[in-house]
C-alpha cells in the first residue's frame, strides 16, 4: 500500500498536529493532486481540511484516516459546487504550475492519455480508482472512505476499468512529444 507520508509513526499512536503535518503533508498533497487532477485545487482542499482539523485535533481518533477521508469528501463535494474551478490537466496548466526547468517527464504518451481519460470518469469512479491504484487500498478500505459497500466499490472500479481499457491505445514503443513542442 502506498503510504501518505513516511511511516514515521504507526497508526493509532497519538501525534501532535504539527507532527502530523510534518509527516503527512507532502503525501496528502500528492494524494489530493492525483484525486483532483488539479494542483491548485489539491492545495486548497488540503489546506481547508487541515485548517478545520487543527481546530479540533484533540477530538480526532485516527488522524490519518480522518484527514484522508475529509480530503476525499471535500473533493467530491468541491467538484459538485465549484465546477468552474476544475481545470483539467493540460500541458499549459501543468507547465504553469511546474518549475521553470525543463521537465523530461513531460513527454506526452499513453500515461497522459490515460490521465486525460481518467479525468472524464464520474467522480466516485475516479476516487475509487485513485484509492485502488495510487493508495493500494482494498475494496473494504475504499468502501470505508467512500462510505459504500465493497460490492459497490468493485462495481465502480470495474466500470471505470472497462471505460479505460477500451479507450486508451496500447503502450507505444516510441514516445512522442506533446503540445509544448
Amino acid at each position, binding site marked *: 500500500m502506498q503510504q501518505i507520508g513516511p511511516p514515521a509513526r504507526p497508526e493509532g499512536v497519538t501525534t501532535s498536529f504539527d507532527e502530523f503535518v510534518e509527516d503527512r503533508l507532502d503525501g496528502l498533497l*500528492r494524494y489530493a493532486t492525483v484525486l483532483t487532477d488539479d494542483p491548485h485545487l489539491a492545495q486548497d482542499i488540503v489546506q481547508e481540511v487541515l485548517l478545520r482539523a487543527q481546530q479540533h485535533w484533540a477530538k480526532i481518533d485516527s488522524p490519518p484516516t480522518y484527514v484522508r477521508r475529509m480530503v476525499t469528501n471535500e473533493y467530491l463535494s468541491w467538484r459538485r459546487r465549484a465546477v468552474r474551478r476544475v481545470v483539467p490537466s493540460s500541458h499549459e496548466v501543468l507547465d504553469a504550475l511546474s518549475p521553470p526547468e525543463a521537465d523530461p517527464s513531460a513527454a506526452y504518451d499513453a500515461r497522459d492519455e490515460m490521465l486525460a481519460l481518467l479525468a472524464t470518469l464520474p467522480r466516485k469512479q475516479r476516487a475509487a480508482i485513485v484509492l485502488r491504484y495510487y493508495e493500494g487500498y482494498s475494496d473494504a478500505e475504499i468502501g470505508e472512505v467512500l462510505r459504500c459497500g465493497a460490492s459497490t466499490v468493485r462495481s465502480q472500479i470495474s466500470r471505470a476499468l472497462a471505460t479505460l*481499457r477500451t479507450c486508451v491505445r496500447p503502450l507505444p514503443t516510441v514516445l512522442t512529444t506533446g503540445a509544448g513542442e
Partner: protein
Amino acid sequence: MNQLSEHETETLLREGLDRLAERAPDGHEVRNALVRARQTRRRGRPRLALAAVAAAVIAVTAGVPIVLHAVPGEQVTAAAGRPVASFTPGWLPDGFTEQYRSSGPGITPQVRRWFAGPGRITLSAYSTADPDWSQTALRIAALKDQVVVGGRVGMVTGDTGTAALLTWMADDRHVLTVAVEAVPGARAVAQDVAESVTTDDPVRVRGEARFGPLPGGLREFSTTVQGDSPGDGSTALDASADTAPRVAALHATVGAGSPGLGGTTPIPVRGGTGAYRAPAGPLEGMVAVQLPSGHWLTVSGRQPQDELVAVANAVVLDPAPEYGWLGTD
C-alpha cells in the same frame, strides 16, 4: 482501436497516477496558512508573560546562550541569477502592500518592503558571514532594551513612537530586522511582524533582466524588483567587486521610466541606437537604450564606455518577470 489488457491498463494507471502525483505543490503555502491561522488565534490571547521575557533577558545578559525556539522551516540559499527572499511575515497591519524585494547570491541582504500611505515596513535579513553583521549577538546582549522574538532575544532601537527598528537573530546564520516607519505604535507593530516571520514561504526575486558576463573583478550582487503595481514594475541589478568591501560598482535598471538623456551622445547598443553620457563629477557614466518592450535599459558605473556598452549588450532579458505580487498584501 485495440483494447488494453487488464495488466496494461493497471500498469498505465499506476504509472500515470504516479506521474500526476509529481505535480503536487510543495507544502509551503499550506504550512504558511496553518501558521497564520494559529497566529491569528494567538493574537487574541495575552502576550508572552513578562516573567518569561525577564528570564530570557537575564539568561542572555549573564552570558548564557539560549535558543528557545528557532525559526521553523528550511533555509533557502540564494543562487546567482535566481535570488530568493527566505523570510516572510505571516502578519502585517491592514492596508500594507508589498512593493519592493531585493536579494542576491551569498551574503547579499534580503530585503522586502511594504507600504501603506506614508507608512513603511521593511523586513531585512543579513548573513552573520557579513562582517557588518557578525557581531550582532554581542550588540544585542549589551543593549538594555531587549525583546523576545520567537524565543530569541532581540533589541529595539530608534523607538520614537511612530518609528522603531527591531533586530534579532533568527538563527545562528541570520540577523533579521524589522524597520517600521511612520506607523503609530511602531514598536508593537514591529514586534508583531517579527513574531510572525517564518521561512515557510520563501519568495523569488525574478525581474525582467539579469546580468550577462560582467567586467573582470565584478560579480552579481543583487536583484531588486519594485513598483506599486504589476504594471509599474521595474528591475534593478547591482554588481560589486568580488572581494570585500562588496560595494555596488555597476548598476543596471530596466523599467518604464525614461532616463534623462540630456548631455548624451548616440551610440550603438544592443543592435540599435542608444545613448551614452560620460561621467562628470559625482555622476557616473551611463548607457541607455529603449528595448522592444518600450522599457528602458540603463547601465551606469565608473567603468569606461566600452565596458558599459558591453554590459548593456550582455544583459539577458527575462520574458516572464514575476511582477504579479507588486501592490499586493
